[in-house]
């Protein structure tokens, strides 16, 4: 792998035949169809796809919050698991920051530790050294409502990182940020990832972001979501922002865009037909 630590031979997560159908009184929506993925330890894998293609649904399943259709196989650390058994096993950051307005920044960050049963004092001690790294020094005692969108997102990220699990799922963590803040956050996330040696699965709808961050990019199809393309990103790390204009980067981008374009058109026609 590009960063040299990922080990695809002993994958941390393997999915095969994974489909997910939502059935309600009038409509049946096939959100995911025959998804197959292998994620190696320490890998940073990004997922791009048109909106509504089932990316968040996939994460809900991996976080243990939804059970896929029968026949799906989920192997976590080599063991076959039902989705429900993944509850508490995977660090999941949903699309919205979902901070609790009655908790200060510190207390929001340590929430997962307290849920695990760690006393507050011990949890605070664990969290303390991270505030600087997450750009939150001096804001520990603020309430979420007093923070900007970018800072709220960092609190949510810090909360996710404090929930130390072998797999971290980030659902469009920078989707709502302005371009400048986003590129700062991207470089910062790469630093944090390399330092903490986590395995990250990262959803985005931004192609540049997907290539810039990922060891591999998974491109999904429009509904029903399938894996359309798995693209290795052989760009050396650490990646400077000047890389965004290099010919290699642009070639990769062209490849992903072509795949996405096809899918977006389909998705658009689908919506028009709905």
């Amino acid at each position, binding site marked *: 792998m590009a960063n040299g630590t990922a080990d695809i031979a002993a994958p941390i997560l393997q999915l095969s035949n994974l489909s997910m159908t939502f059935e309600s009184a009038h409509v049946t929506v096939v959100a995911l169809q025959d998804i197959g993925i292998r994620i190696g330890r320490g890998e940073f894998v990004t997922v791009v796809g048109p909106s509504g293609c089932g990316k968040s649904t996939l994460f*809900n399943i991996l*976080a243990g*919050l939804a059970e896929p259709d029968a026949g799906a196989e989920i192997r976590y650390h080599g063991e076959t698991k039902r989705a429900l058994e993944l*509850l*508490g096993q995977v660090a999941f950051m*949903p699309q919205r920051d979902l901070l*609790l307005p*009655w908790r200060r920044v510190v207390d929001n960050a340590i*929430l997962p530790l307290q849920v695990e049963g760690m006393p507050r004092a011990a949890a605070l001690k664990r969290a303390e050294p991270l505030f600087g790294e997450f750009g939150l020094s001096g804001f520990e005692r603020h309430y*979420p409502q007093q923070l900007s969108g970018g800072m709220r997102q960092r609190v949510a990220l810090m909360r996710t990182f404090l929930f130390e699990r072998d797999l971290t799922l980030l659902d469009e963590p920078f989707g709502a940020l302005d371009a400048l803040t986003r590129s700062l956050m991207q470089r910062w996330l790469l630093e944090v990832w390399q330092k903490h040696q986590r395995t990250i699965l990262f959803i985005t709808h931004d192609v540049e972001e997907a290539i810039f961050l990922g060891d591999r990019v998974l491109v999904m199809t429009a509904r029903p979501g399938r894996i359309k393309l798995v693209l290795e990103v052989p760009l050396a790390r650490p990646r400077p922002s000047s890389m965004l204009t290099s010919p290699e980067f642009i070639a990769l981008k062209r490849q992903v865009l072509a795949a996405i374009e096809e899918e977006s058109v389909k998705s658009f026609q689908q919506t028009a037909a709905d």
Partner: protein
Amino acid sequence: MRTGFGAQLAALAGILMLWEVGVRAFGLGSHVMPTASAVFRDLWANPELMARGIVRTMTETLLGFAIGAAIGFGFGSAFAVSRAFERLLFPLFVLSQAIPVIAFGALVVMWLGNGIWSKVAIATYLTAFPVTVNTCRGMQSVDPQRLALLRSFGAGGWTIFWRLRVPFALPSIAAALKLGISLGLIGAIVGEWFGDTVGLGILLLQAMYNENLPRLWALILVCGAIGIFIYALFEAIERRWIFWKQEI
């Protein structure tokens, strides 16, 4: 939005002045409408009597409120957590409220005697219902995404209850507590009418039998002042401690 405290005091003084002047101008006898000064003179002349009544009625109100709030929180939580339990008992709760509390008054006195506990029971009964309803509704409306997040951290039902459901429902519980304490005060006063020797309700009855209008008005003012005081107290607590109503 908020007029100053000074302006509010001035308005109050103006109303008292109007009262005084109006009663004198129309020459209403003290058996119809006493002057404001007569009312305050009565208040001033009987501090011990008033204080004893206030202490007794407040004790009944607060005890009844505390017990009613606890019962309401307990049942409301149980209803929120268990649909089956809610279906079974919630209709009974609603039905019980359709019966005016007065109808139970005599029964409560026969069961609990003429002392403080019969009044506490009535105040409890009145407080428990709004707290039950709002606790239940508040907890049921908990944000499903935040619920999912906590579950993804491996949180069990108990953790979710204390860390999410309770704080989430607190703004709506606080609204019910404000209503509950006001109802509790009414319950305590009315409860005293079924028989006792001390309390604001008893003083009201005595003033009525003696056609003592200044006393009657003095008591009305005292009851009003207590009502405003407890409401303001709860409002202040709510502002200070439960500030996330709009954020969820």
